[in-house]
């Protein structure tokens, strides 16, 4: 009687081929997910930016600075319904700086306003920086400050 089927070695070879293919494919999926997440964050940044401009137009001044994940006072009404400053693993923070000396090439007594984005997803922050089209972005590798104006 002949016994047909696969030997253990053949099965192991097939498993090894699958493992190799998986190790090549998995790292290519991550950046796609991060880019999608960064696109969502840019959408949130634009929502915050528009809300801040609305507040400034209505009240004559920028919304006051707020803590991590806190909606700045006075901005809630200008934001889309249910908009939060924490989204999954990403936290937003509204920041303002008064600069008595201004910035290089800008007049004195300038106010700089920005959205600080904190996330542990380094790949998402890299993608976010590439998508951002504002004046300047600065920060560290787990926290990016996107200047609004």
């Amino acid at each position, binding site marked *: 009687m002949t016994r*047909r089927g696969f*030997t253990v*070695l*053949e099965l*192991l*070879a097939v498993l*090894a*081929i699958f*493992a*190799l293919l998986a*190790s*090549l494919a998995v*790292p290519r999926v991550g950046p796609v997910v991060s880019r999608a997440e960064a696109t969502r964050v840019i959408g949130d940044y634009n929502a915050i930016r528009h809300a801040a401009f609305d507040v400034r137009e209505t009240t004559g001044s920028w919304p006051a*600075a707020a*803590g*991590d994940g806190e909606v700045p006072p006075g901005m809630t009404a200008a934001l889309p319904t249910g908009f939060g400053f924490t989204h999954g693993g990403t936290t937003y*923070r509204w920041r*303002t*700086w*008064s*600069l*008595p*000396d201004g*910035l*290089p090439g800008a007049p004195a007594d300038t106010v*700089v306003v920005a959205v600080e984005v904190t996330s542990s997803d*380094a*790949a998402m*922050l*890299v993608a*976010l*920086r590439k998508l*951002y089209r*504002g*004046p*300047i*972005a*600065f*920060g*560290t*590798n787990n926290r*990016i400050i996107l200047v609004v104006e």
Partner: protein
Amino acid sequence: MTGLPPSPGATPPPKKPWEFVDEVRRDADAMVADAARPRAPLRTRLPWLSLLLVVLVVLNVLEWRRPRVAPQAFTSAEEEASARFGIYLAQQAVIHYRDSAGRLPPSLAAAGLEGGDIAYHAADSIFTLEARVGPNVYAYRFGQDLTPFSGAYTTLRMATQP
């Protein structure tokens, strides 16, 4: 029936049911014959299989152990510029507070900068600001030239809008 050959492109006449059965039987016979064909004995295949397996295992180990470079949102030069610009913003916040309150703020939080990475020390009318990026420390002492700190803005602007 005219006896003429079917014109090209014309639909062939439908098969009879027994023709289908014959076709299926022929296919089944061919599959059985193929399965019955003797394979190379394991003794012949073993060296090649072993070699293939070793090669695949080595490739897997190399691929899984390949160092992955963590993505960095900022280069080290941009991180330095960020730290310097952060010090400039903090310095301006302190000056703004001093101009309105008439004294230095007790902390950066009092000057409206909570939760930053900048260390602030004030004594009398002198204050210092320190930012740490990895092993590097960037410091500003009140009265020092601010250009390296405010100038970081230009570096960051060029990096953001190349």
